[in-house]
């Protein structure tokens, strides 16, 4: 791939749809590769945090592409969406295979008492998120970062240089949007 991630992010920022698509597939294969590499390294039974994977991806690419590489917050904005798709594809694949695949990706907040989500529900959420991204991309990004990639409110706040309360409020707003959206879509 000749075109650098930095260039693609720059073009996507300016609204270049073709660049955004290329960026998506470039990041997708990059993250997929990283996930596989990590698993090969750590052993098949190992679980891996999505946020860790993203941090690693960032460091990896930034090191490769040099100082022109965008800051962490901008990168994460794109990468988190890609990660979401990676996770959903994986869930779908796993469901198809019935038995567990080679690896699993856990989110940061995995709590022993929390339930996993069905892959069909994930697909609905993902569709609604794409809609929300058209209305208010910042809100959609928070869901990607928090729900799919497992970043904490504090981490997102630090990344965006806003208060934790603001992030929480944005998350609440996005959640209301998604809840309403999925409910109305399903009842249609």
């Amino acid at each position: 791939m000749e075109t650098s991630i930095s260039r693609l992010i720059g073009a996507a920022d300016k609204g270049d749809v073709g660049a955004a698509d290329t960026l998506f597939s470039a990041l997708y294969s990059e993250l997929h590769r990283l996930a596989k590499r990590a698993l090969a390294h750590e052993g098949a039974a190992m679980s891996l945090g999505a946020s860790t994977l993203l941090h690693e991806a960032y460091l990896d690419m930034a090191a490769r592409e040099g100082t022109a590489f965008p800051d962490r917050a901008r990168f994460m904005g794109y990468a988190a969406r890609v990660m979401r798709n990676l996770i959903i594809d994986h869930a779908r694949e796993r469901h198809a295979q019935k038995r567990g695949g080679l690896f699993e990706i856990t989110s940061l907040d995995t709590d022993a008492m929390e339930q996993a989500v069905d892959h069909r529900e994930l697909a609905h959420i993902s569709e609604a998120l794409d809609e929300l991204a058209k209305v208010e991309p910042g809100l959609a990004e928070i869901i990607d970062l928090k729900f799919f990639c497992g970043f904490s409110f504090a981490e997102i706040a630090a990344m965006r240089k806003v208060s934790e309360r603001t992030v929480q409020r944005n998350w609440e707003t996005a959640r209301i949007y998604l809840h309403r959206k999925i409910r109305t879509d399903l009842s249609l």
Partner: protein
Amino acid sequence: MSPLSSEQWRAIIPYLDQVLAMPEEERAVWLSSLAEQNSALVAQLRSLLDEQRASVQEGFLECSPVPLATPPGLAGQSVGAYTLLSQIGQGGMGSVWVAERSDGRFERQVAVKFLNISLMGRAGEERFKREGSILGRLAHPHIAELLDAGVSKAGQPYLVLEHVEGDHIDRYCDQRQLDVADRVRLFLDVLIAVAHAHANLIVHRDLKPSNVLVRNDGQVKLLDFGIAKLLEGEGQDEAATALTVEGGRAMTPEYAAPEQLRGEPITTATDVYALGVLLYVLLTGQHPAGPGMHTPADLVKAIVETEPLRLSDVVTQNKTDSATANAERRITTPEKLSRLLRGDLDTIVAKALKKNPRERYVSVTALADDLSRYLRNEPITARPDTLSYRAGKFVRRNRTAVALVALSVVALVGGAVGTLVQARNARAQRDLALRQVQRTEALNEFHQFILSDAAPSGRPFTVSELLERAEHIATQQRATNDTNRVDLLAALGFQYSVLGEDAKAHRVLEEAYKLSRGLSEKSVRAQASCNFASGLVREGDLARAETLVEEGLREISNDPQVALVRVNCLRNGSEVALERGDAREGVARVEAAQEILRHSQFDSEMEEMLISIDLAEAYRVAGQNDKAIPTFEKAAALMSSMGRSETQSAGVLFNDWALALSKVGRPLEAEKLMRRTIEIGRVGGTDENVDPMQLVNYAFILRQLGRLNEAADYAERAYRRGKQAGSPIAIYYSLNTRAYVYLDQGDFPRAAATLTELEPILRRTFPPDNAWFGRLALSQSLLAAGEGNSQQAGLLADRAVTLYETAVKAHARGAGELPLALLHRSAISLAAHRSYQAEADAVRAVAMVQADAQPGAFSSSMGSAYLTLGRALQAQDKREEARTAFRSAAEHLQNTLGPDHPDTRAARQLAEANPLQK
């Protein structure tokens, strides 16, 4: 309900954001006022707020989107004796299911935890089950019970645990808005459980809020005890485990201790650290690494390198809104919260969070004790890192001493901080009499600290000057009472003797003693007489010293409240006994003191250290060097942990330790320690403040190393300092050492003059059977031999041996010098061509030195004994045996005195000069 268009959403989102920012109770007012302008908008907002409530209720987007690790079809299947009911959790470790006994014998539901680890073969399974059963024995009401452990048919290991319904401790505290004291109380329950596990040698290794649950009834339950250990693979190193187990849960080792991240051994101190983090979070609402995002790398760096902010600073330092919210959850304001945390809680948490595991609380119980003391408003044992705490408490405690304190404050700056004596027992502490003892002890220790221990650092005045001013204050101050004056004089006397100012020490201690005769308080009287006894030892008045000690010991009751006075008296009594030559009594007295201290309610590191020093010294004097050397090491370690390795007390310790090492024939190590002692005592490059005894000892060790010119120089300096300070003990020791050095140098006239000066002093000071006369006879014998009078030399050597044999029978001081006398006599016999007798003495000496030596260790005494034996054998033409003896001698001497020492060279040459014949 019609779906909102993108335009509508864009319009409504800012309003939604605004209403979400408001507290619940303000929303209604705001909405109704807005409704007057735009009722349609408000209707939409209200319905969206309903949407929010619904999503909260459903837990929408709150669960992880992670695919299940265990196939969902497991429900209804059984593992071991349990039937799985439903999955209740999923995490990096594996999945968790609710289950019940298949045979229905047991109604309570349990939790089955599948672990995402692969066990390596049958051995791995065995180990897993074995460790599981160890954990299963850990029964405590605050620890979730481990009922069973096994491996499923599919090969997945699982644990069967008590099913606990509760909330993470941090959430529990916040939701119930517990105040600081209630949080500490709840936390104490956690500590009790962890202490119980530690007592069973089980370390948790993974303490964090999600493993510390609180049930609705307020009962604390700890989960996953020791499971981190179970997850460890065979032979895997600890760091990898901490990170990979954590790594499963996303590589955020927020509660990991520095040693876990560095791959160092995990101990109970690791749990102490995690508990420190937990307490930090409970009290401040923040993580010690600070707010904001932590990448794993940042966290690791913070944990290993960065000192966390103090609790009291962190609660006011951050953005006001979160600080206020945090304080509100503790029903207070940020400022009040900061005041609550400042001081003891700051200190306690800081001690638990020390980077170095050895600086943390020694046990979870010690941490719990301090927190309990905090709750009861008693002084805690942990010391803050600043001086103000100590000085502050002292000034408040004792008003009469303030003048002296103010005078000495300059000396305090930059000095080390020790400990005050603290009472363990709350009731006892309220007791007036006990407070009196504590006060005295604090006063003594304080003086010792400012006057002797602060001495090596820079000073705007000389110590003698300071002491004289203090003495003036003590004797002239009309306002103070006699009890306090006795205390002050005792402290001063101690200082004077530390400086080797024996005449001045005698003066103030005697004055204190006389003053105390007019007092009725027995502990004060006893203390004064024992202190005076200690002063008299240095004066050489041993009989009177012993009488005073016995008088003092009789006067103190067995009352635990005066335990410290008794300890002090026994310590002084030990010094007197040792100097009198009664080594056995000396050891017995200091062992008794140690016993009393151990069973008293006083907990003083300082006192413990002083006793260790005394005990080591008593062992040394009693010739039990095998016990003495490790005891010295222990005392030195205590001292260094108290930050006192550059103090005068450390100097004394190194001195005694050096003598023990010299005695067992390790003079090279001894020389290093002794040199350090003298460097510590030296102020401004002069010997003026160096204890003359230390100079004598250094001379002695230098002589042992064959550095005779230096030895003579130091022995002469010691003699001058002894005269100057009026210290008879230093005078006779230095005369004795000088005589030996002159003899070694072959300077017989000077040796003779020195011995002539020494003899009458010894006759005045000691009874005729004292070991000193053995020493005297030995040097006189060497002198006679040097002057060519071999008959006289033989007689004197016989006398020396007889005197030492008497000492051995009486277990008296000097008993350890018998082999030395035997070797001397052997040399004299050899010179007189009585080689058979020479061999007999040398063989005896070798056997005695061997019995005393540490097995396998090299010793210069062994070397000298073999060398002498070799010479006796050679004279009888027993070449082969002589060669073996010389070779052994060379080996011992080379390793203890170095290759260039004349004795080493002699042994080597003699070994080569006696080749194997045949």
